[in-house]
């Protein structure tokens, strides 16, 4: 590990230029929630099909065309996509100058679902890394919106470097029955905000054990089920234990069940200068015990302004259970070599996965290996060779999620 000697954020020479985009009605609401003094120095851009007047943003883009006559996308994804593609250059120029672009959107409607993938593409073309924070609609919103959201999510995954998605349905675990609608939406906003804050801190705070953006992307890419994330803070002498307890009891983690099922977990610890190795060890130890099968990416940083607070961000990603029909691609970097290339972080090999294939990937980098069905090839009819729950007859490179670029 290479400990950075400079600890204060402003001494960091390579500052990441970040822009946060809110797309669609929900996205702009979320954007307004994020736009606080904490995120000073970040550009906030609101994008919508109709006028994003209400947005609390530095830049407002209305993708207004004659096509819509000033009205919104009307819940139609195709319309949303069409106007976004028409205004592609506008979006692209809005993305200029940023290294990292966050997209906040509520999927399911017309604008959020239609524009976000196009925006992500524009941002990539402008040379930025794209990370999308999206919500999926409530189940009560109906199948069409659900389908639109899923479709858009797939599209987004193909173009964005990482997608963190929060199914609204999960919120029911966080709120009780008597909670008002406004409050519920505030909760969603807060959760997403926590996610954004956690990731933002990963990127801008110089790490003692830095997490590179590429680590984050490789974690989020190709994981097709939802990600779960938690951002917890704790203070006091027993803060490490408190943080661990908070993480394990976090509603989005289903009492730690999500951690056990996930196969990639990113953990980032941030604390004041009094962060001890024992604390880091305790937190990591507990998390590691929870997710024996996961690849763990760990980061730690020191922020003097936090004083006695310990912040822990956990992002857990799980491979999808439903297979994708699209042409798959492989990504990430080869095992072993990745660790040697990226010093200063700890990686654990990902292991057992039930006999499922790796889900198809995000970017079409290379189309040589279509892995939609698990094949045991010539061992199809023979007794499976099981070793610690893993079927060794399935090619190793599939089970280990290897990777060609």
């Amino acid at each position, binding site marked *: 590990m290479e400990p950075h000697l400079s600890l204060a954020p402003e001494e960091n020479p390579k500052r990441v230029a970040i822009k946060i985009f809110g797309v669609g009605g929900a996205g702009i609401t979320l954007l307004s929630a994020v736009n606080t003094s904490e995120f000073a120095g970040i550009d906030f851009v609101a994008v919508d099909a109709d006028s994003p007047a209400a947005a609390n943003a530095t830049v407002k883009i209305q993708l207004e065309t004659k096509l819509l006559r000033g009205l919104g996308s009307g819940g139609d994804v195709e319309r949303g996509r069409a106007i976004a593609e028409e205004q592609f250059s506008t979006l692209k120029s809005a993305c200029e100058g940023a290294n990292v672009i966050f997209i906040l959107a509520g999927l399911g409607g017309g604008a959020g679902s239609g524009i976000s993938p196009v925006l992500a593409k524009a941002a990539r073309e402008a040379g930025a890394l794209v990370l999308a924070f999206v919500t999926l609609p409530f189940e009560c919103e109906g199948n069409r919106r659900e389908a639109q959201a899923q479709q858009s999510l797939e599209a987004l995954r193909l173009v964005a470097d990482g997608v963190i998605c929060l199914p609204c349905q999960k919120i029911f675990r966080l709120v009780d029955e008597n909670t008002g609608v406004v409050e519920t939406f505030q909760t969603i906003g807060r959760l997403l905000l926590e996610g954004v804050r956690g990731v933002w801190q990963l990127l801008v705070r110089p790490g003692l054990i830095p997490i590179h953006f590429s680590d984050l992307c490789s974690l989020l890419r190709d994981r097709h089920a939802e990600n779960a994330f938690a951002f917890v803070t704790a203070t006091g002498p027993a803060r490490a234990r408190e943080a661990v307890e908070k993480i394990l009891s976090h509603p989005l983690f289903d009492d730690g069940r999500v951690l056990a099922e996930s196969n990639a977990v990113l953990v980032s610890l941030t604390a004041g200068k009094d962060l001890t190795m024992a604390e880091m060890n305790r937190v990591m130890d507990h998390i590691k015990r929870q997710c024996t099968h996961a690849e763990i990416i760990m980061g730690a940083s020191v922020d003097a302004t936090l004083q006695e607070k310990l912040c822990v961000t956990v992002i857990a990603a799980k491979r999808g259970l439903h297979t994708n029909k699209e042409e798959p691609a492989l990504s990430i970097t*080869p095992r072993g070599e990745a660790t040697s290339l990226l010093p200063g972080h700890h990686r654990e090999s990902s292991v057992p996965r039930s006999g499922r294939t790796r889900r198809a990937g995000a970017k079409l980098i290379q189309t040589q290996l279509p892995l939609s069905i698990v094949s045991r090839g010539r061992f199809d009819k023979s007794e499976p060779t099981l070793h610690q729950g893993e079927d060794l007859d399935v090619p190793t490179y599939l089970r*280990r999620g*290897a990777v060609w670029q």
Partner: protein
Amino acid sequence: MFDESNIVVGLEIGTSKICVVVGEENAEGAPNIIGLGQSLSNGVRKGEICDQEKVEHELRLAISEAEQMADVEIRSVYLGVTGGHIRGFNNRGKHPVVTADREISEDDVQDVIKNAKAINLPSENTVIHAVRQNFCVDGQDGVMKPVGMLGSWLEVDMHVVHGHANRLQNAIRLVKGMQVEVDDVVFNGLASSLAVLNNEQKELGALVIDIGGGTTEYVVYVEGGIRHSGVLAVGGDHLSNDLGHGLKLPLSRAEKLKRDNGSALVKEENRGQTLSLLNEFGLAVKTVNVEYLQRIMSLRLEELFEIIAQELEQAGLTNYLRAGVFLTGGSSRVPDIEKLAERIFQMNVTHGHADSVGGITAALDQPEFATAIGLVKYGALKKRQRVQRPNLTTGLKNMTNMVGRLLQRS
């Protein structure tokens, strides 16, 4: 013609080939290889027979080839067995020395060995080997010959290799059905280790990994005795299958690519290199990325070694292997495999050579034949034991039994 009793035959019904090795004991009792017969095997998957008829036919070919070459008639064989169902574990037997003077007798030794063999196996399993390791007299470990020593408790560590009785019986019945007797059934891993290791290496501690077509056997020797053994039903077939799957090729093509361009580590010069596959008219039909090919193989072999390394780690044997790791079996021909293994085991890795037998040397120096040669060696050892130790006590027992029976009858 040779005297029949001098001939020891090893038979391995492997996943990729059936191999018969004929050995002849010389005057000192050391085996000399005089014949070799082999045929491609199509009726075996992962070391176990799945098509009796095919195997029977191929076995007949191999045996007749060996008979012709050695100019003998093969009456009985030492049969090598393997398969994912075979397991090895250590068991300790305990026996109190009850005689008044506390002197350990031959009977005590036999009893303690019997105790150690009495293990809880699933009812369908049977013991293939029970190898004695060390005796322990009143907590004093490492006793080789306890007879005559004083003590109140005699203990012995045994390494027991067991497997599924019916599945083992399948191979035995098939051989017997061809009017060939089975002298003994031997675990392939044990046979290979006999062929590859000399006594000094066994004493130092060594790991033998036999990577065959369908299975990989591994055996650990510590202080001269077998301490650990096991089978993984993963072998060269898996390499081909992975390649066939990953590169979208038919198995036969994958097999050929594995042999021609395979490597256990991605070679620097092959990075990004592609290879055109030609059809029978010499036209390029497909291009294959050599780097991917080698990485797929590398991942599979890496996993295989990792599993074995993990197992040894759990058994606490990693620090005892001073002679290092020995690779054998057909799949150990993959280039750079020793470098990969060295990286994972963090110790010296060499290709094992079956050089402790005499005879047709060209045939002996191939990793594929280690098992069959080991079988011959095992047979020769067994024979020598039988000749050298005309067991007095058992002889006497037999006689008293006979007398007893006679008395009963009258």
